[in-house]
């Protein structure tokens, strides 16, 4: 099957979907790597903090996969896909704007840094990372037209999004922290997510505005 035909179910080009999966993978890990930095002033720099961060990121992603997969069964479309990115970006804003406001009362009320950091992580990261987690299964649905291909498409998508995660981890921990402030990197991630969402919505809008010939075969099928 040609790649054009694969795109038909969403009207979004597969290359676009795959690139966006790369960006979301990149941002997830950039945000995760910065988590330890953001929390160290209140909960220390020990392994405890990493334990909290990784736990909450894993749980948030798990919930995101479940929810994203479920949403993809009901009228999968480009608009929803774009809104995931914009929603995640907006829910990342409190990490910059209210980090101290969030962590200070937790620090004051919970003496044990283990539970303090866990709670802080839930409040700051669960929602935005959960939304980012919804992107993967939803992308698979947008890419897949027939069930024969689902495994292949899912493999490709996870390959790219995980490459994105690897790149995000490396770039952030090796270079970004040397070049920028933590918050500048966070703003960068938010900007990347907003732009990704904007591009998706724009392309989706353009494709829907003119009754695209590409959509016809999908009805024929």
């Amino acid at each position, binding site marked *: 099957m040609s790649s054009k035909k694969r795109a038909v179910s969403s009207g979004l080009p597969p290359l676009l979907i795959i690139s966006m999966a790369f960006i979301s993978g990149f941002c997830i890990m950039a945000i995760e790597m910065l988590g330890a930095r953001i929390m160290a*002033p209140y909960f220390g720099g020990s392994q405890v903090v990493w334990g909290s961060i990784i736990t909450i990121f894993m749980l948030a992603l798990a919930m995101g996969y479940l929810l994203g997969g479920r949403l993809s069964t009901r009228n999968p479309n480009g608009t929803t896909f774009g809104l995931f990115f914009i929603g995640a970006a907006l829910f990342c804003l409190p990490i910059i704007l209210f980090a101290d406001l969030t962590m200070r009362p937790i*620090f004051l009320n919970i003496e044990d*840094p283990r539970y303090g950091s866990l709670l802080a992580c839930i409040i700051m990261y669960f929602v935005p990372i959960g939304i980012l987690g919804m992107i993967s299964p939803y992308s698979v649905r947008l890419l897949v037209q027939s069930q024969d291909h689902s495994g292949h498409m899912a493999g490709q998508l996870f390959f790219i999004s995980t490459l994105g995660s690897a790149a995000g981890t490396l770039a952030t921990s090796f270079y970004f922290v*040397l070049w920028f*402030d933590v918050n500048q990197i966070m703003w960068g991630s938010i900007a990347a997510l907003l732009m990704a969402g904007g591009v998706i919505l724009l392309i989706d809008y353009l494709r829907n505005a003119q009754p695209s010939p590409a959509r016809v075969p999908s009805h024929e099928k």
Partner: protein
Amino acid sequence: MRNKLLVACRLLLTILCGHSVSSFAAETIHEERSIYRDITVVQTGDRRCLIFNVHRGDRNQTCIDVSTPDKLVFAYTRMSFAGLLLKPDPKTILVAGLGGGSIPTTLTDLFPDAEIDVVEVDQAVVNVAHQFFFFEENPNMKVTVADARVFVKRTGLLGKKYDYIVLDAFGGDYIPEHLLTMEFLEEVKAIMADDGVLVANTFSMSRFYDHESVTYQRVFTEFFNFKMPASGNRIIITQLKPLPPRGALVTEAQRLAPSLEKYDIPLLEYPARLTTRVDWDMSRRVLTDQYAPANLLRDN
């Protein structure tokens, strides 16, 4: 030419050291793996050393001479007592970073009535200090297993102040980045008594040295920089009040030196080496919670 000379020196050093070591066999008497590091206790003759991450070639963290445990083996450990020149009679003391416990053990011996808090992040280090380095807690000296940043922040909330604070948490090959930011030093400043003294044991390495100096300068305006020729360490000594003139340090050194003799601390040599001269690049960026790539800076 210069390189060749260096190589020759190094070779000579190796031969000399190799010789002195070979007369006693170094024996590993304890190994322990904590969540933070590998801890090894090695004994060579009477000298017993605590080494972190031995496989990565780390230097000794603390050494003691088991026949004369009062004596401080390392120059930097001795140097950290130069802070007493500014505050000779501390009543409340905080030591961040335990290691083998040489510094707190000496402090409690010197000031048995002083209330000493030791904060160490790694329980395994506390255990090893107890078992192998004669470190003992007493009613006036207790250890808290916690991250120093968390401990200092909480102490600040309680409104507690210390006369003498020793930051000695930079052992091993990893610098805890959250312990050298401007914000951390502000938190430390907030728990210093009005005439309290801060002594920080750190390195004198490359770019990191510049960044660290600039950060201390930002928070404390001025500090004594204390380096000894044979040591790669440097000690930062500062206080909230303006620093005393050299004459006052000399007088204090003469008064205190006898009481420090039993620990091998050559206090009389120190005043001449405490300097406020700027020997770092002042254009470097201040380290903050937002920007603290200390470990990356160290290697560059």
